[in-house]
């Protein structure tokens, strides 16, 4: 096509979003085949084992933590929250993009959603699950975490509803359940496909049963499809505000506090933007190797990546605004504590982290202005990694650098991570990767029903 027309035409016509010439059958077979338990490639196996070990390390670390106490971390007074909460906020942020992509793009009828939605939703489910673990682990007495939940008890006492932690408890709980439902509902027709495919193949009885159970006996009846579509739309409609509210609650965990650096009205939108930022970055980090190794270039096209890259760029500006606003308000407020906190971030002991997070989250993404970079997967991959790191550092700065020097100079202190802090961070990443590999191995990595629709539409397109 001509350079002009590229710019003039709709960004998401099927032809733009679907390479090659795929029939329903061919496409279905390609995706479904992966779930039929063919032998795994050597690198695939290596990756699995590596992450598996990481997962075991995570479990071991948890056991030791519960046995010994949170004292194995570097936390202290004043810095009672360290890596655990940093990791939590980081993971929950990553867990945002999935639902947002599926839900928001579905509501806004973005056709390019289909190809990436499944991967994104899976990412969400795993990230949120891991995020959910950390607040529990960080408790002094984790075995009593359920005291945050309202239930009739012999003590006649209830949760303290004014605490943002309780709001958060409900937000995360809701988010986990809803994104699970969203994910699962999307999977039902695909499970049916896998069930039926397994049924036709020799020696796949076990899979037929398992997928059959998960498919709940889906048979693609027209009325079912009608209700199914509506329900998905409803979930999407709910998911979009939910995503925003969840991260707002996470932001409140800090904003409700009175500590300079926490107590800030800009936090909710700021956190949401940051969440999308890290979420999209992580999505790129996952999807780029995925399409490479599974040969999905025809379904997850350069257009998809480019679109994600643009959102990344836009988000980095939102964050940049957030950073500026924080600095401005702290000085504008004339509050000496706020002022000191801001200066301390810039020139205090944690300044290096602060400046490098600015570099990662604001400077680096500017590369995406160049079309060449947006369409070069190597660049995109590198940038997405950098952004992930940058976002983690941002969470760290918010959590730690704010409290380590608050009101009374007499009680100022420093936080130095111990080996255990690092083990928990890294092994949680391994755990995440492990879960994602399992997903790739056992489930359709692309929402087949949605893609078939796309194929259908392309067929109907006036050539």
């Amino acid at each position: 096509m001509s350079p002009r027309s590229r710019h003039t035409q709709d960004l998401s016509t099927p032809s733009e979003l679907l390479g090659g010439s795929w029939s329903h059958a061919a496409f279905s077979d390609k995706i479904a085949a992966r779930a039929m338990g063919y032998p795994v490639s050597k690198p695939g196996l290596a990756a699995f084992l590596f992450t598996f070990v990481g997962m075991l390390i995570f479990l071991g670390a948890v056991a030791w933590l519960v046995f010994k106490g949170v004292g194995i971390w570097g936390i202290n007074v004043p810095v009672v929250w360290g890596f655990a909460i940093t990791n939590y906020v980081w993971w929950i942020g990553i867990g945002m993009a999935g639902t947002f992509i599926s839900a928001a793009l579905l509501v806004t009828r973005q056709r390019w959603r289909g190809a990436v939605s499944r991967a994104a939703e899976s990412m969400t489910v795993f990230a949120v699950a891991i995020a959910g673990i950390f607040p529990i682990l960080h408790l002094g007495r984790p075995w009593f975490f359920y005291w945050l939940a309202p239930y009739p008890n012999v003590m006649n006492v209830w949760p303290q509803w004014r605490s943002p932690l309780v709001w958060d408890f409900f937000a995360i709980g809701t988010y986990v359940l809803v994104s699970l439902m969203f994910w699962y509902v999307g999977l039902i027709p695909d499970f049916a496909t896998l069930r039926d495919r397994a049924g036709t193949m020799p020696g796949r009885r076990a899979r037929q049963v398992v997928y059959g159970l998960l498919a709940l006996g889906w048979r693609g009846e027209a009325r079912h499809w009608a209700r199914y579509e509506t329900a998905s739309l409803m979930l999407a409609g709910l998911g979009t505000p939910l995503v925003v509210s969840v991260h707002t609650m996470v932001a409140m965990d800090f904003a409700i506090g009175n500590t300079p650096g926490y107590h800030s009205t800009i936090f909710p939108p700021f956190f949401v933007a940051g969440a999308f930022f890290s979420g999209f970055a992580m999505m790129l980090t996952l999807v780029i190797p995925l399409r490479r190794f599974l040969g999905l270039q025809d379904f997850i096209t350069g257009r998809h990546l480019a679109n994600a890259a643009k959102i990344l760029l836009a988000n980095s500006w939102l964050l940049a605004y957030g950073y500026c606003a924080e600095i401005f308000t702290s000085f504008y407020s004339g509050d000496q504590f706020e002022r000191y906190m801001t200066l301390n971030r810039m020139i205090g002991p944690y300044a290096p982290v602060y400046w490098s997070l600015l570099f990662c989250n604001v400077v680096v993404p500017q590369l995406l202005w160049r079309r060449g970079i947006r369409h070069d997967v190597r660049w995109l991959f590198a940038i997405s990694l950098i952004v992930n790191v940058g976002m983690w550092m941002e969470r760290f700065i918010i959590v730690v650098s704010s409290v380590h020097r608050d009101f009374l100079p007499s009680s100022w202190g420093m936080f130095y991570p111990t080996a255990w802090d690092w083990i928990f961070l890294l092994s949680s990443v391994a755990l995440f990767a492990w879960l994602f590999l399992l997903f790739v191995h056992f489930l359709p990595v692309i929402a087949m029903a949605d893609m078939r629709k796309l194929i259908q539409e392309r067929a109907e397109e006036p050539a």
Partner: protein
Amino acid sequence: MSRHPVIPIAVDSRAASARRSEPRGGAQRPDSPERRRFLGLMAASMALASAGCSGPPQEKIVPYVEMPERMVPGVPLFYATSFVDHGYAQGVLVESDTGRPTKVEGNPQHPASLGATDVYAQASILQLWDPERSQTVYGGGQLATWDAFRAALRPRRVAWAANGGAGLRILTGTVTSPTFSDQMAAFLARYPHAQWHRHDPLHDDRALEAARLAFGRPLDTQLHPARAAVIVSLDADLFVGHAAAVRQAQDVFARRRATNPGGSRLYALAATPNLTAAIADQSLALPPQEIERLAWRLASRLGVDGVPQDAFPPPRHPDAARWEQALAAALNAQRGRALIVGGGSLSPATRALVHAMNAHLGNHGATVAYIDAVETDPVNHADSLAALADDMRHGKVDDLFILGGNPVYDAPADAGFAAALRQVPFSVHLGLYQDETGRAAGWHLPQAHNYEQWSDARAFDGTAGIVQPLIAPLYGGRSAHEVLALLAADGAQGGHALVQDFWRRQAGAAAFDDFWQDALMQGVVAGSAARAVDPGRPRVPPPPALPDPPSGALTLILAADPSVGDGSYANNGWLQELPRPFSKLTWDNAAILGRATAQTLGIDTGDVVRVSAADAGAGAAAVEAPVWIDDSQADGVVTLPLGYGRTAAGAVGNGVGFDAYPLKTRAGVHGHAAVRLEKIGRRHAFAVTQHRLDDEGRDVARTVSLTQYRRDPRGDYAPEPAQDETLYPQYRYDSYKWGMAIDLNACIGCNACTIACQAENNIPVVGREEVARGREMHWIRVDRYRTRLGSHDDVPGDEGEAKQTRTVFQPVPCMQCENAPCEEVCPVGATVHDSEGLNVQVYNRCVGTRFCSNNCPYKVRRFNFLQYTDDKVTTLWAQRNPDVTVRRRGVMEKCTYCLQRITRARLDAEREGRRIRDGEVVTACEAVCPTTAIVFGDMNDPKSRVNRAKASPLDYHLLAELNTRPRTSYAARVVNDDPELA
């Protein structure tokens, strides 16, 4: 929560307030079995051990076999006794919970206490329960028995009988005990050739020498600072480190608090930071020689006759000259109402001069009085020990009995005591621990603890007090009395009989029983205080030679450590973890240097240096010490705290810090030793609880100059948001409304509150590493700030003002905010308000999110990051306060305003159908405070002490702008600064 020992407890109504009206347990038959019963109860508490997740174990109740009279199980009794430290008595009331001594309070009737105590008295209770105390007799390094020892004694006794005790030596510390002195006199009469030596590493030999120089006889100086309008301290610390410290603190601040600011003016010249200099209105850091020169010039300026004109050139320090004038002026203006105190590092001649100056100013009989030395047979300890060591070396000593003390560790290095001890055929050590001496001596005998023995002792003013046991010796230890008696005769009487015999002879058999009851109940022997004597006109000795250290060398000061003293408390976890007042250092000592000195030497805090005597050549005694820089240290002076580097203190005290005794010499006791410092390249990490002394201009601990205060006494020193600035309805607290007022004018930073709180509230010791991580657990901490005077009106901060900076100590307990930020964020409601406005922490509900700590602007909340409370060592269970829950791992804790004491008082009041009286609830920190800087009470009672305190215009709330509405408030410090020196 963990299961803590024994029974839930209520309180005997008469014991309502530990301090004011306590039951007199004295009448109890002392060695009555009940003192031992507690062991049965221990068994019970063992049965309670370890609450697994399998529900509580079957718990036992263990009643008495015979219920002791006046004993109500579950109701603590208070026994009056004396805590004897370095020979002198401090009257205390020890709380006994069903036979377990658990807490020490001051005895209001006792002159050295007046209801308060120092940190050592508080920590002594932990020492009593220390599982590492010596538990058996050792003979020749082998386990032995008392019988074996007695058997070994018999032949010796025969020998002494033959030679009149030639070669028999007894070494004790400072002795004021009338009974012991009497025993000793008898003993020496019986063995005329035996000799009694004295060694106490902290004994103030110079004071003795000074008295001899000035008056020709040993006299003790009695200070009456309450009568003084001007007090000048020449390197003397009025508030710590000697028998009268606690009392003097109260006297000094009788006229220096928020209620009457500027009642007196306190000048302090100090070579090394001390509490007096810190609280002083004007203080100046000078090397000891300079201080002495200034003293002599001042004396001649005052016209003290016998003082040569210009004995010394004017001191080099720029401010010294102005100080000289200012002091002269101030002292002359207040003749008869002035007080000069010399101490610490001053040479005997100069301290004699101080007596002369006081006499010259007509302070004798007014602010200063003299009594005959309280110490029995006062001698120069350094000389006494040196003489002993010489004799030992020359084989003149056959039998050496060391009754208490640890000379092998703390004798002056040049005495060579340790080496000499090996040449003594028969050496015996009686001690609480099998310490360095206990291991070197032929025999080691376990000593009965202060609270396990019968004894007596005199206070600084001569007042005698009976020491009665709270519990039978845990490890079969015996007192010095008993051992001395044992030397004289086999199968001698017990301590109870010995002490009673002596006092029966004093009081007369007839009146004895009443006398005895009274003495035990009051904790003092009525009318036993020494009479003041007329010292006569003091002679002025010739000025001392005051050589400056050779160039490049520094003047050495060896000081008792504010926490472990001379080292005898090294194995006490509470004291080791108690932040040192100035450095806020824990579990360590350090070579203290002034900033300028450190810079010229190119040394920084944390550098390890080798400190060696300047005059001695290579191979001379040297110690390796990490450096700590303190701005209030005089330049050219290095201070080494004693009492560390123990090798046989126990698991807690061994290897903590460095041992400075190798640098202690007999010569050093008289003159000023000079030392050289050299970096050895190593660095040392300290465990510090406060890293910032600068208040960052946040004006946290407020100071205001007297002139400014006089200008507008009603001035608002603390603008606060109005009560009605809220959309929410206000909670009302109608019944009681507990509040606390802390007077920064009176806080001397002695840390007594911190450790009293630790004892009262079962606060665990976390250890060096945890403190270094920033996880100390103290519920009330004493912050130290160096603030500029009047820093709260925006003076542009220029460093030229540096000399005007003052140290302010600020005790910080929980503020008990009415709008508590911590409560709002707790997800499980583990911290909420009760109907009297207390911010309560419910440990058993806490899940440990720690958000409350994040949200606490005062950072007074403490978290059990690990299992800090020692739930293995059972003797430590016995020490714990059964009224306070023992916290386990993973829960937040904090100051509760001593809720258990409030509850005691409430129960009594409720049973009697009345309201709680003002002063009936006394928090642990308030009770122990020597200067009553802390006042607690009901803010709904208009006449309560706390309301009176809060009425002061100086009263302000910490971080009031956050509108947390604290119940704890502070009174800004008013500095009575001398315009001359501004």
